[in-house]
């Protein structure tokens, strides 16, 4: 995979619309490293779960989304194989190419035929996987709505399931935070991959005393973001994945305006052809606003202010989701206060959107269950008794 990284990166950006800088520097290297990490687990599984007997599950059915096509394939396939399972993977209908390219590499690598199988298709193909009687485990990454349909379909079966679903993650900036770094963190948190990120920091909470300053700096920073051709190395924000998704995002922009929020978009040039969305802020947002409650899955940030620690914990936790959160402050004791009280599976303190094969990822509440990555990611693919 590493030898063909450039090929993967170009295909990934061509098909998904994400910037080549991201494909090249984030998605593809992380996908390679994920396989490397889990390969090493294959002969050490006995150490992973003390005092328990482990067995492979059998056939794992895996359904992945279009936001990180190759990386999600790696997150699914690598731990499944390390734990001795075989795989039927369905990539998203708009982003199937890198998974098929991966199939070529898998074939070349000498993995026996049938161990990894990749089937392309729409939702009905996914449903066929979910409902197949000879599949032992379902792993799904995607929307909470579809996750619930899958979970319902599996009731009464013995299939094991893990769901990695939506989010509406809080990014919290305290007055003593390093402001320039925090602004970079906000930008990275919400505009990375056009906001097509389940853990995107889409709800910004800024402490009142620095709100004006942060918002001003954020707007300035957004003026310098370059929206355009995903294959241009200078592009910061690439194309929206599909026309359908662009329509969803635009629907939410209208809802935000109708709800009385104040919208800000920088005066950046947007390509005339293709699916693009300018980076967007919403100010004067209420906690109950639809745009602050529902996952938009686009480059759209809501901004609210807060005064006290207690208030921001309550606001941040006031969501059916619980995937991730960010906290920016210079005070160590406050970081650990916040990180232990925020009800989310991944907490980034003074950073955001960091990923690593050794680091378990997954949510609380309606963001799904089970973890991917690290030692904890193995349990999803093993029968423990």
């Amino acid at each position, binding site marked *: 995979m590493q030898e063909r990284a450039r090929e993967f990166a170009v295909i990934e950006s061509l098909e998904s619309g994400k910037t080549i800088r991201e494909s090249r520097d984030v998605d593809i290297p992380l996908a390679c*490293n994920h396989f490397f990490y889990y390969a090493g687990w294959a002969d050490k599984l006995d150490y992973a779960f*003390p*005092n*328990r007997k482990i067995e492979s599950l059998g056939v794992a059915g895996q359904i992945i989304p279009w936001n990180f096509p190759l990386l999600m394939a790696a997150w699914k396939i690598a731990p499944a194989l390390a734990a001795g399972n075989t795989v039927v993977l369905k990539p998203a209908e708009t982003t199937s190419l890198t998974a098929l390219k991966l199939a070529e590499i898998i074939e070349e690598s000498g993995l026996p035929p049938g161990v990894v199988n990749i089937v392309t298709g729409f939702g009905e193909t996914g449903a066929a996987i979910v409902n197949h009687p000879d599949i032992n485990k379902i792993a799904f990454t995607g929307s*909470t709505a579809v*996750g*619930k349909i899958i*979970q*319902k379909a599996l*009731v*009464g079966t013995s299939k094991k399931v893990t*769901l990695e*679903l939506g989010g509406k993650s809080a990014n919290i900036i305290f007055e003593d935070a390093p402001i320039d770094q925090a602004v970079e963190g906000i930008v990275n948190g919400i505009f990375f991959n056009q906001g097509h990120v389940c853990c995107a920091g889409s709800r910004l909470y800024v402490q009142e005393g620095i709100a004006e300053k942060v918002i001003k700096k954020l707007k300035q920073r957004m003026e310098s973001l370059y929206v355009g051709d995903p294959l241009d190395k200078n592009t910061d924000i690439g194309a929206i994945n599909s026309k359908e998704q662009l329509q969803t995002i635009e629907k939410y922009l209208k809802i935000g305006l109708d709800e009385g929020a104040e919208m800000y978009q920088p005066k950046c040039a947007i390509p005339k052809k293709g699916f693009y969305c300018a980076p967007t802020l919403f100010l004067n947002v209420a906690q109950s606003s639809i745009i602050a409650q529902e996952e938009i899955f686009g480059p759209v940030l809501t901004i609210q202010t807060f005064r006290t620690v207690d208030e921001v914990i309550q606001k941040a936790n006031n969501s*059916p989701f619980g995937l991730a959160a960010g906290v920016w402050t210079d005070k160590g004791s406050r*970081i650990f206060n916040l*990180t*232990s009280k925020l009800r*989310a*599976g*991944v*907490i*980034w*303190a*003074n*950073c955001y959107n*960091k990923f*690593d094969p*050794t*680091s*378990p*990822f*997954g949510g*609380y*509440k*309606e963001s*799904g*269950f089970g*973890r991917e990555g*690290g*030692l*904890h990611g193995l349990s999803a693919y093993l029968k*423990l008794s």
Partner: protein
Amino acid sequence: MSRIEVLKTYKIFIGGQFPRTESGRYYTPLDSKGKALANICLSSRKDVRNAVVAARKAFGPWSERSAFNRGQILYRIAEMLEGRQAQFVDELMRQGSSKVAATNEVNLSIDRIVYYAGWCDKYNQVVSSVNPVSSSHFNFSSLEPMGVVGVVAEQSTSLIGLVSLILPAICGGNSTVVLASEKLPLCAVTFSEVVHSSDVPAGVINILTGSPEEMAVILASHMDVNALITSNLESQLSNKLSLLSVDNLKRKFDYEVNWVEKDKQALHYISDLQEIKTTWHPIENVGGASSSY
């Protein structure tokens, strides 16, 4: 003059208090000879909802107690149960157990509580990890309790099934709403008296008697319950509860376990009811590397 026996009123346990069911309903389970055991509260939807409110209120402070202190409190439950051993043996025998079986069940229950008391300040060390990420960050994963756990207690035992499901949940900092065995409810009510006198904060354990079928669907569809555990439940009801649990993606575990067996206690009953939280923080990279010390 002969003395008239003072019969015990079996009430439910919500938020550290012993109310009657707000519905005013009761039922009368029978012993093996067809004789009435007692009048037992037939709890209602409203009781379940009240219990969830009490459990939610108790969850934050309970989960923030030091693990050591939770261990002390759990151990205190065992102590108090030991002190009432004869009463539990008597109740089990009235519900059909032989003396030997009853004594075994009570002793095993006490030992199991001590077992989980000891886990309180240990499970997180065993299951947590520091993750060696490639970037310059300190990254660790540790366990956090899920929140309010609904417990449909084992129906075929009065005490051991109850204890085996409640203890791992509260050991890990969760609060619980427990539906007792319908036909064998006596020990559940007496156990709540033990809990009440054991420094367990109000609301951490709430115990309701009545029809589990009626109450479990309310627990399963309650949006403020985070997890639901059941034991040897017949599949039709179990599936129904699973389906209802999807609405807020409740974590659901149905244990097919004979709790009377000695080794049916383990770390994973605790960790099943825990979320894994991963925290990242940057590490400054200035100096140090070339200094000799």
